[in-house]
């Protein structure tokens, strides 16, 4: 199944080829537009920077104090039952509430175990296949002034669970 990894290497070059090629065919001033768009990237990063600083400090403290290790030890009986790594349970739960808090925990996993470890790969894939449930629901339903959300939460949980299980299977198969 290593062809999945192999094909992954083609995706970014392909996107470049396709978008730039299409831009040239339609006579778009591609370089001007690229530099214009690149400026938006600065805005995006600057927007998340204060949040990231605050949360990375909190996670740094939790890691240094030994609280994170303690937490995975405490969760071990549950996660063993679920066949899920205890180190990754906090982050998958936090991800339901806050994407930036999950990011800080993700970076902690990368630091502790490496991005190319089993845990590093698995969590990369889990986080790329799920979204922040409660935050998204709050923002969308608040904007529309809707109070009764009916089966939305159930559906969101089903999708998240399916994505997480698929991530575990695909990580075991691809690497």
């Amino acid at each position: 199944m290593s062809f999945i990894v192999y094909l992954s290497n083609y995706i970014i070059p392909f996107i470049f080829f396709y978008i730039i090629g299409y831009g040239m065919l339609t006579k778009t001033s591609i370089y001007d537009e690229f530099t214009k768009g690149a400026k938006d990237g600065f805005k995006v990063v600057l927007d998340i920077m204060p949040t990231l600083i605050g949360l990375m400090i909190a996670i740094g403290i939790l890691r240094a104090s030994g609280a994170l290790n303690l937490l995975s030890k405490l969760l071990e009986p549950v996660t063993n039952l679920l066949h899920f790594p205890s180190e990754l349970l906090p982050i998958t739960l936090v991800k339901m509430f806050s994407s930036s808090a999950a990011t800080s925990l993700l970076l902690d996993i990368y630091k502790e175990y490496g991005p190319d470890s089993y845990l590093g790969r698995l969590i990369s894939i889990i986080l790329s296949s799920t979204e922040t449930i409660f935050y998204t629901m709050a923002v969308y339903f608040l904007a529309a002034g809707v109070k009764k959300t009916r089966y939305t939460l159930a559906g969101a949980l089903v999708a998240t669970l399916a994505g997480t299980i698929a991530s575990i299977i695909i990580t075991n198969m691809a690497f």
Partner: protein
Amino acid sequence: MLNYLWGFMIFIGIIVGVLGGNVAGIGNAAIDSSKEAVTLCIAMLGVMSMWTGLMQVAKKSGLVTSFTKALRPVIRFLFPDIPKDHIVNEYIASNMIANILGLGWAATPMGLMAMRELKKLNQNSNTASCDMCTLLIVNISSLQLIPVNIIAYRSQYGSVNPAEIILPGIIATSVSTLAGVIFATVARKLSRYK
């Protein structure tokens, strides 16, 4: 939400640190982490700008518009209750395309406009319509094809091949979206029998 979570994390960290005798490391960890966050953001500036630059080319050349058009049959299938030529179809299509292309900040305003229109279609009710539930479930199931941030983080933390997770991620994301779509479709059918 984060006010409580953040306070709780720092509080627990310090208490556990004091009890476990790791208190010396805590101050250093706080200082190091704040510096690390900035280093990371600088690294992210590159990858993120590369992506937004590329997406601007895609937008300007009309590629995004043609993707949005291609999405129409999918939207008709997912949201059968919306009148065919209603503007909300456009909002939903733009929201989904922005999500697929990893432009989350562009997706949310479109999604919120879609929600407001859906509320009007639902006689301004306080209860979510089936279309709203579907929109939310599909959004939460994650549509993003290329997890740009995660690739940037992996590269910053020394991954030999940061992009190796793209295809596995696409497969996992398709499974979660498919599960969400099946759930939403079945739930819509069931709610009609009531």
